[in-house]
């Protein structure tokens, strides 16, 4: 297998997640080269071939141009797999490259499987094995599924120049909303998920957080529905936390939520569904109605 890995770069920096691509390539085996639209001052610690285009000239988000650059490198390298991270950059660009090559794309790869790739489905509850039927395959790998690997060394840089226009004009970044709670410092977090049912039930979860001396966290739907503010959101588009204790109340355990809290020392999940994926990482799974268990639990510790 020969792979072309697509590194990531944003706001003038190479993203650390780029190293997960090397972790994936090491598992797959075979030769690999990397392409990145970045800068010469931000090279990965890797001794192989790096196709480098200048982000200052090409733009950090310019899918038409980045697609062209990748196709140029594909021409030269003739890889079997073109590998992206499953990220806002990767899932946006990968299908464009796949269509140009008429290659199969497999998204959210979490592991290698016999002759194919293992991917999550049904909100993380189930798995599929997918086998591409084309000579070349485009992959996006799930963040956190493969080890971070720094191969070490200095890349052999081959510069690519891009020309041509764009159909999507990038005009700038907007910083994340200011946080009024810094969950990263909390030792105990009690998080509310959609399973708490309604906004009126949030105080019940807050009461447990208070009784334990911790902070209130939340999954995304609870924030989107405006039951709590965004500063409480845990996950890929919220905060990453690693408290001593994380209590997940009515949270299914979607991959984007897990990415933000799986490094917690001890995890208790309360869920009425015994098969909820949160059960895979929880130290204790309490199979119960959250609105029955939580008040009873709070009452016991408050005494």
């Amino acid at each position, binding site marked *: 297998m020969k792979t072309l890995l697509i590194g990531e770069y944003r706001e003038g920096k190479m993203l650390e997640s780029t190293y997960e691509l090397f972790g994936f390539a090491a598992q797959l085996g075979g030769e690999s080269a990397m392409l990145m639209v970045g800068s010469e001052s931000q090279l990965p610690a890797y001794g192989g071939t790096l196709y480098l285009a200048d982000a200052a000239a090409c733009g950090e988000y310019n899918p038409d141009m980045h697609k062209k650059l990748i196709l140029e490198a594909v021409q030269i390298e003739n890889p079997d797999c073109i590998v992206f991270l499953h990220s806002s950059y990767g899932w*946006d660009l990968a299908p464009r490259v796949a269509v140009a090559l008429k290659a199969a794309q497999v998204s959210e790869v979490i592991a290698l499987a016999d002759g194919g790739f293992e991917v999550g489905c*049904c909100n993380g509850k*189930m*798995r*599929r094995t997918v086998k591409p039927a084309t000579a070349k395959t485009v992959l996006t790998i799930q963040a956190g599924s493969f080890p971070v690997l720094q191969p070490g060394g200095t890349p052999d840089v081959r510069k690519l120049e891009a020309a041509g226009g764009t159909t999507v004009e990038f*005009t700038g*970044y907007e910083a994340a909303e200011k946080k009024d709670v810094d969950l990263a410092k909390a030792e105990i977090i009690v998080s509310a998920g959609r399973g708490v049912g309604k906004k009126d039930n949030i105080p019940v979860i807050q009461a447990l957080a208070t009784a334990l001396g911790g902070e209130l966290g939340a999954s995304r739907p609870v924030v989107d529905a405006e039951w709590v503010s965004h500063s409480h959101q845990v996950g890929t588009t919220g905060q990453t936390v690693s408290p001593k204790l994380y209590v997940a109340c009515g949270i*299914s355990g979607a991959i984007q939520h897990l990415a933000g809290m799986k490094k917690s020392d001890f995890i208790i999940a309360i869920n009425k569904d015994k098969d909820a994926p949160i059960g895979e990482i929880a130290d204790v*799974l309490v199979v*119960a109605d959250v609105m029955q268990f939580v008040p009873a639990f709070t009452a016991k510790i408050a005494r």
Partner: protein
Amino acid sequence: MKLLVCIKQVPDLESRFKPDAAGVWYNETDLAFRMNEYDEYAVEQAVRLREQLGEGCELTVLSIGPDRVVEAIKKSLAMGCDNAAHIQDAAAYSKDPWQIASIISAYAKERNFDIIFTGMQSQDRGSAQVGVIVAELLGIACTTTIVNFDYDNGTITAKRELEGGIKGVVKLKTPALVTCQLGLNVPRYPTLPNIMKAKKKEITAISVAELLKEESLAATTSFHPPAKKGGGIVLEGDIADQVEKVIAILKDKTAVLR
């Protein structure tokens, strides 16, 4: 202006999933279906634009699937879409994103939509591919994962959600396609009068054979539960008993309770 929104019907994800006879997808017996969550945001945004543009604007909702998907189509009509295309395909579940996208683009090709809305991903399959492939096949501009949408005089200004809550601001000229992320807006509930009105709206049925010209590029060879990692304790039964056990475990394994 002509607008299109693509929706998929998916099972309720709190269901218990069992493999089908071939072991490559879920068995549909006992599952309740509803509109893909991401697509509700897409429909809402399309309806808001339809309202902003007023007379002379037409919003079509499209769904590929078996007869049951008509329920999701009706909901979109009650939310404010003008008409619908039901692409009848009892075997839609077995098609890869490439085939689903080529069906949509075959439908859209001659109809010259100015803006196409899709969800960023389907909750059951979750490939996040269909929207982008449709745009590439049609040769129109496209951006993904939007959490903010604004349209003025042929230009879309959208905010893309990036990791860690940062946003990227982009501008696209129509014709264009956008894929919608959770939290883009607050999808409305259809009101009773609108549900009644929707009954008169036209749903055109088209056989998938008329639009599908492509072979699949990838095959699912197995559908199965994750390998159990084990280790975790599962507590079932009486609440008072569960509370006692959790407290005992916390005292034993952590330092959080004194």
